[in-house]
């Protein structure tokens, strides 16, 4: 019983990081109907840049975190400007946008490799003070709690933002129909750029949290999470933010439970992708997704 | 008989009744017009008749054959060709290639003779090329055969779509606004083309908003409004029908 609870806690924790990552993915998809495969690369750069700030510039993690998040957002703006905006007018923009994002992902990863080296690095000891609490046989570390809190906070802020503010509504409008949004006087280009900023900032933040927890950063750490992120947004429904959050949690839980039940980590990913495959065949719109694609 | 029978066709989308109990007959070898205000359900009907959409209720038959549950490509195989309201040409192909693509059902273009470079393959290619150029000439586009289809004028693209539909060797042509956006002269050319096709035995059902075009060309006209048939009859009868006038000019309450 304790073991199960422990696994649930672990699953919840890793699930919240997955959710944060997936939210960025789904935000861009919801607005543009395009998959941004460079998201994982920004995730990686987020972790690495934060590490650099802490190690070399002596920043505390409390400063490095928001700073890096902003930098990641700026990378997102760059991504939009270079790779997505020029292609929006094309008839096959979904496809060419995908390719473009792959190209930028390669470039970003090359930059990460070149700037930070290929070996794995870790945050210096003492970056985050870690306490462990024992509650009835279950161990929870302050790091875990902190990560879950930060992730949850960011996701709640985002959900409120999208739902309640004018800009959030504008984002949703562009997601429904770009043409109508333009007619309504919404600055579509600006909204799209802003969406990329937010999406990439969240991706970068997820990277920092991921790096802090596993304490093992490599230039290709985005790879393992990239496909999982895709699986999460399919599961939760593409374009749905609550779906991404729920999907992330579900995915994290299923991962952890599969390992616990089968005793090895071998089946873990296979089960995850098998489920993804099945979902795509049975209900491609996912748990909470929109059935239709957006109008031009 | 090459007759098209539409019996009580209905189609709803969620709560919206797009078509309600639509019935009419298209006699073989005639040009039949389908008119009505915007949103009357004309394109929906064509989509159903070409297999793109299933009806919610009703029957349709062509050549005494029930069209129920036939897929789009099967409809084409029994001789029903169509054009689209918003023109669906193959943008990256030339005019000639668009028409050659339409020769799918009338060509063999088999793989094995081609792999073996047999003369039969070359013969067929030449035959298809000739046929395609003839079809282009028929719609007056043979001089633009190698132009990319997306570089044509709006009217030329409509004519190209007709040419591509013709290369199926159809017996029933469903045209969705074939002369929309065309000048008087261009529309008259298309009218002549349709008349000559009709003389050769083709049956044509066309949607149009260009009234002089419809009235001068069609031997029979069906008027739709709010998904229902108001009347079917000769152009003169339809013009005189009070309900039709009301539908277009909006006098009186719409049907529930």
């Amino acid at each position, binding site marked *: 019983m304790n073991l199960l609870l422990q696994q649930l806690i672990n699953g919840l924790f890793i699930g919240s990081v997955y959710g944060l990552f997936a939210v960025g993915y789904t935000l861009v998809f919801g607005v543009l109907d395009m998959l941004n495969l460079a998201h994982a690369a920004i995730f990686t750069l987020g972790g690495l840049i934060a590490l650099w700030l802490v190690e070399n510039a002596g920043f505390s993690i409390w400063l490095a975190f928001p700073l890096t998040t902003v930098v990641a957002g700026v990378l997102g703006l760059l991504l939009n400007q270079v790779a997505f905006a020029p292609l929006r007018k094309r008839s096959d923009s979904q496809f*060419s946008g995908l390719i473009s994002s792959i190209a930028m992902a390669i470039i970003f990863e090359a930059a990460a490799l070149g700037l930070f080296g290929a070996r794995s690095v870790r945050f210096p000891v003492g970056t985050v003070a870690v306490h462990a609490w024992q509650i009835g046989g279950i161990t929870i570390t302050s790091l875990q709690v902190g990560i879950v809190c930060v992730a949850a906070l960011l996701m709640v802020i985002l959900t409120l933002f999208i739902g309640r503010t004018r800009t959030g509504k504008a984002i949703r409008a562009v997601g429904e129909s770009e043409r109508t949004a333009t007619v309504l006087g919404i600055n579509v280009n600006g909204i799209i750029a802003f969406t990329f900023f937010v999406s990439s900032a969240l991706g970068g933040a997820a990277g920092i949290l991921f790096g802090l927890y596993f304490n093992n950063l490599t230039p290709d750490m985005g790879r393992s999470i990239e496909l999982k992120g895709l699986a999460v947004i399919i599961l939760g429904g593409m374009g749905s933010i609550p779906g991404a959050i729920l999907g992330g949690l579900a995915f994290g839980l299923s991962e952890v439970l599969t390992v616990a039940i089968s005793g090895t980590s071998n089946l873990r990913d296979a089960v995850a992708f098998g489920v993804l495959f099945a979902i795509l065949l049975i209900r491609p719109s996912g748990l909470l997704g929109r059935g239709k694609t957006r109008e031009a | 008989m090459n007759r098209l029978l539409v019996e009580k066709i209905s189609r709803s989308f969620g709560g919206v009744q797009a078509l309600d109990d639509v019935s009419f007959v298209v006699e073989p070898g005639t040009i039949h017009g389908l008119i009505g205000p915007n949103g009357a359900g004309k394109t929906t009907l064509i989509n159903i008749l070409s297999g793109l959409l299933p009806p919610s209720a009703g029957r349709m038959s062509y050549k005494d054959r029930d069209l129920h549950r036939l897929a789009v490509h099967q409809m084409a195989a029994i001789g029903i060709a169509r054009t689209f309201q918003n023109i669906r040409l193959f943008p990256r192909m030339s005019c000639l290639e668009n028409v050659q693509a339409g020769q799918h059902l009338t060509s063999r273009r088999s793989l094995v003779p081609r792999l073996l470079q047999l003369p039969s393959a070359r013969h067929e290619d030449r035959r298809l090329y000739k046929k395609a150029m003839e079809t282009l000439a028929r719609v007056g586009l043979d001089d633009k055969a190698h132009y990319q289809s997306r570089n044509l004028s709006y009217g030329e693209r409509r004519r190209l779509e007709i040419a591509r539909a013709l290369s199926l060797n159809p017996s029933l042509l469903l045209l969705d606004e074939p002369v929309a956006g065309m000048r008087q002269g261009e529309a008259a050319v298309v009218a002549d083309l349709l008349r000559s096709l009709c003389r050769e035995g083709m049956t044509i059902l066309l949607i149009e908003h260009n009234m002089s075009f419809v009235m001068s060309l069609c031997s029979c006209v069906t008027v739709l409004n709010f998904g229902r048939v108001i009347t079917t009859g000769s152009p003169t009868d339809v013009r005189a029908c009070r309900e039709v006038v009301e539908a277009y000019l909006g006098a009186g309450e719409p049907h529930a």
Partner: protein
Amino acid sequence: MDYLLQFYAIYGSVINFIGINALLGLSLNVTLAAGMLSLGNAAFAGLGGYTAGILSLHYKLPYAVSLAGGACTAGIVALIIGLPVLRLRGVFLAMATLAFGEVVRLAAVNLNITGGAEGLTGIPQATTTWTIYLVLAGAAYFIAVLRRSRLGWGLMSMREDETAAGSLGIHITYYKVVAFVVGAMLAGLAGGLYAHLNYLITPRDFGFFIAVDLLTYNIVGGIGVWYGPILGAATLTALPEVLRGVGVTAGPIRMGINGLILLLVILFLPNGLASLFSGKRSAAVKAATG
């Protein structure tokens, strides 16, 4: 003559890889030319490679039979998953095929018969450069002819506009499955060739990134012509060597250049490098050859 032998001694493996990558690129071209964004060909190559390797290694079957077995296995699996998967459009199809690829890769890592994460070793080294290029030539010819056949015209029409293509009598689902299976068999064949090239095949050889590579060959080379993927594969496989030759040895820079090329192509030359050449062919010639 001596120079050629020397050249081959140094660059032999690159030449081999160009050939295999070109074949893989071609296999993806069949589905891309129909407008399907299937990214499963790396997995099919893996299926074919492992099957061929197992047939040669454990069952001691002759080389050609093993290759055929690999290709057929890939084809059969494609047929099974094709029908449900090909109902998906665009990005969803891409993700389903990627997921499929991951499942295959993970199966290879975890099963005993495939040698686990270490891969299958000790496969007889039966592939020569000649074998590769002969098969490539045959496949290229086949694809080039296919494009001008009824199936080819149908696939091209589907890529341009699926709805309109259907209205012309083209059986969309059937053609999609055929394209998918043909592509899978070619990929399986390439996988078999690869497995017998260097004694071994590992799960890493056909993962997510290989799948992306195949797409890149097609984009950079051009989807619309049969020699596009070959051009793309040759360019991108040879590029690291060329760069190394002019002194650019740093891994990150070579990787960055790969990404940059892809970016420049998709932004400014969307029909690939091949469009630089096909513009020169007179349109009349192109149309007359039907």
